[in-house]
């Protein structure tokens, strides 16, 4: 094997060969998966490993980056390049990687503690800059790895090891936060529906710039059943509102419920029979203004009311790394490649004989 590392930062040895046909096994590392039995993380991992052979991408050009937490172990289980870094910092590390290596697919695997508490700052700035990374946030509304403290998405009054008298904190709504941070792609899925997850991951991967996917994930040890009321098989049709681009937003076994936008601009769940199909809000992922997506992200106050899932927003915005490369290229085009000897003489120099 020869080293074809390029001076421009690209490293490749297989670009001329067609993308090999792979199976789930090719994308799985030899490391034993060590999540608790029954943890929702298993289905997310399976969805990912089954999707990748389908995406037409190369293992060697795929990187999984994570911070700290249960979710953050995922990179160890992927037979790709990967880094399990430090708490909350994965979006920052990913920014440096994606900005210098536009040829890579960079996935950031994170949890609600990792990216909404200690790493909140990095998350919002990566989204704002529209760095070309795909962020999957496993939201289980609890700290799992540290054994059961409340998280920034835990509901108020929640009793945990660190809040024996109930949490006093208003939780974050991850999608509202991402939309407020100017995210260009925002979606939600859940660990009980591999097909839906797969579709969301596929869409997030296809998006240029930052993609943000919240996955409701069951922590069966410290917060079991947190999403059961909406993701349980028997409740889904009544409690999950699928968002489909260009379609009226409706749900229920017979599509009997729908979402309308009232005269005050607020969105609400109604009975289709009451308002008529034509009154329903038609979902538009590409709406420039994030206001409506924001409203949809807050349609439900928590995982006990009808909750939209799917792609909330998917808009085109300049991608950070690409723009940085463009600036570099434009300057080289204008000034020519830099020359060290000329740089050293760029101030006023003088000669001593």
């Amino acid at each position: 094997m020869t080293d074809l590392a390029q001076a421009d930062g690209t490293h490749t040895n297989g670009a001329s060969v067609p993308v090999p046909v792979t199976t789930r096994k090719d994308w799985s590392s030899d490391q034993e998966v060590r999540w608790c039995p029954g943890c929702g993380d298993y289905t997310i991992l399976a969805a990912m490993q089954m999707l990748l052979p389908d995406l037409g991408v190369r293992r060697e050009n795929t990187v999984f980056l994570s911070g700290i937490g249960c979710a953050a172990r995922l990179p160890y289980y992927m037979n790709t390049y990967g880094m399990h870094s430090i708490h909350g910092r994965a979006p920052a590390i990913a920014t440096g990687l994606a900005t210098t290596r536009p040829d890579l697919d960079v996935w950031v695997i994170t949890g609600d503690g990792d990216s909404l508490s200690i790493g909140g700052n990095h998350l919002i700035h990566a989204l704002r800059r529209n760095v070309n990374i795909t962020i999957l946030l496993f939201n289980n509304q609890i700290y799992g790895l540290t054994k059961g403290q409340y998280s920034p998405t835990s509901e108020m009054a929640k009793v945990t090891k660190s809040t024996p008298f109930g949490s006093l904190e208003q939780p974050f709504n991850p999608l509202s936060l991402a939309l407020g941070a100017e995210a260009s792609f925002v979606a939600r899925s859940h660990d009980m529906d591999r097909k839906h997850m797969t579709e969301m991951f596929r869409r997030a991967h296809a998006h240029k710039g930052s993609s943000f996917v919240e996955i409701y994930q069951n922590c069966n040890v410290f917060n079991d059943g947190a999403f059961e009321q909406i993701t349980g098989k028997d409740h889904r049709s009544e409690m999950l509102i699928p968002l489909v681009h260009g379609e009226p937003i409706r749900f229920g076994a017979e599509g009997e419920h729908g979402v309308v936008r009232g005269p005050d601009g607020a969105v609400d769940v109604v009975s289709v029979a009451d308002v008529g199909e034509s009154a329903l809000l038609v979902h538009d992922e590409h709406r420039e203004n994030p206001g409506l997506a924001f409203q949809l992200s807050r349609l439900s106050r928590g995982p006990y009311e009808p909750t939209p899932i799917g792609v909330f927003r998917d808009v085109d915005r300049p991608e950070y790394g690409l723009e940085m490369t463009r600036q570099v290229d434009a300057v080289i085009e204008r000034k020519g490649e830099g020359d060290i000897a000329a740089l050293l003489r760029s101030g006023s120099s003088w000669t001593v004989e």
Partner: protein
Amino acid sequence: MSDTTMNEHESEVLDRVILRFAGDSGDGMQLVGDQFTNVSALFGNDLATFPDFPAEIRAPAGTLAGVSAFQVQISDHDILTPGDAPNVLVAMNPAALKANVATLPPGATVIVNVDAFEERNLTKAGYDVNPLTDGSLSAYTVYEVPMTSITTEVSKDAGVKPRDAERSKNFFALGLICWLYTRPIDGTAEWIKSKYEGKFLVMEANLRALKAGYHFGETAELFASSFEVRPATLEPGEYVNITGNTATAWGLIAAAKQSGLPLFLGTYPITPASDILHELSKHKEFGVRTFQAEDEIAGIGAALGAAFGGALGVTTTSGPGVDLKAEMMGLGVSLELPLLIINIQRGGPSTGLPTKTEQADLLHAMYGRHGESPLPIVAAKTPSHCFEATIEAVRLAVKYRTPVILLSDGYLANGTEPWRLPDVADLPIIDPDFASGPNHIDEAGNEVFWPYVRDETTLARPWAPPGLAGLEHRIGGLEKADGSGNVSYDGDNHERMTRLRAAKIAGIANDIPPTDVDDEDGHADVLVVGWGSTYGAIAAGVRRVRARGHKVAHAHLVHLNPFPADLGDVLGRYRRVLVPEVNMGQLSRLLRAEYLVDVVSFTQLKGIPFRAASMESAILELIRTEDAGDGRSDAVTSSVGGTPVDGTVPADGKVSR
């Protein structure tokens, strides 16, 4: 001509002069100081500068807190420092006079903007009576020049508002000083034209002020004559005048070129490191990518991410910023990836003295991470040396796959000196030596890639950025199994990995030059060991001591971790070792711990560099006590211990052991 006094009636040719421009932060003192420096550099003088300004962009006008000063020493021979005591002080207002008058030696020249010495300004500066009239300046030659009124007057018919015209008085002062030291002003005039292009009135006012200052010197007959400091006989070559921060930025660009690695700077603005970001962001023609992150942590994090991807990842910081980066440095130690952390040290603790210099982060660089997490430390010793030190730091980072800390400081960052440009062809080649294929046979007999298989000589692990099929691997902050890099909680493995990481860094001692000792004939009893920006002051102090007929040796450390392999032997060759530092004695602790040598620590923490004079006194004191006894008796040491050594400036430096 002695080196600390100047008498303009005696001779027209001086071997050197120390000038200090002082005014309000808004008066443009740094600008004119810089410009005078450039003119002198082009003229061929050797020089060294020391910008000294407050942290506030515009502290209250007219107050002592708002005084901004720029000191430059120009000389006809090679010099090492910006000088201890100014021969000439230009004071734009009473506060500038008050803040600086104590540093003037008797006989110094004081040129004041007399227009500013009115009651309001005097009160703001805390003067009850006008120092120009109460005889308190009798030790100096004082020139009262109406700078504000002449400056306003000459721009009157150019359509410049008097308020705006007044702002050009710094150029009047510059013009006057240029005349006094026989510097042409044409170059400065051209510079003004290009700098203020498009702002016609400002340009015109500045040009007129500059010329008025120059002509004032010629015609006012205040000064008996002008002076000349002739070009220095410097080593032949091409020179530029350079600050430490610019030299650092250029060193990064050169190191990127020499290694073929794309340069990525992830950083967050902080004084006095930001100028490296500013300089690098201008040079995209070298493929440089600069990333102004959301915080210090993201700055170094992005740099580490870029390094994972095969780039030269660099972060710059200072003061509290370096604390914030500690966690990511630890990850870098665990990942064993090349990464450069540049710390432009400033006064601490906490926000401390943002614009003032200090060397108090050495122990932080050594130990400021949890766990056993050693990394190499390189320190620059002069502004231009920042170039070479940066390239050396990158060399170590790339070769040993490790974060490296490069220490500079506020004095080096902003100070300037002429730099003889190196021949680009002589710059070291840095080989990234990326992994190219499998490096291990697994139990099943398959060729596999293991990320923690080490090079036998350097103990470095392979650097395998994403992109190569067959080399996919996962790394992280959890302890790794020796070789495979898989997560391992095994105690024996942890001990082995900890010792391997330490041995890798310690082994660098075999890859760096031996201690460079300046000891004329090898007969000195006293050795002065320094590091970083004290180089100039120590070398100047050593020269002075030698000029008095004493013997003294000087070693200046560039590699602080590991130390040069022969350092212990070197220390053992001298009866006494003096370690001057702008901190509480950090290197002296390391030397004592490492070599059990009873070094004498000489410290100062004033936010300014050591003066050559206090260095001279400290060395002489040690030589004297050494001559008086065996130098190691308790009686002698206690007479030195804790005693201020510089009689003239009582608190200037502290000797302790």
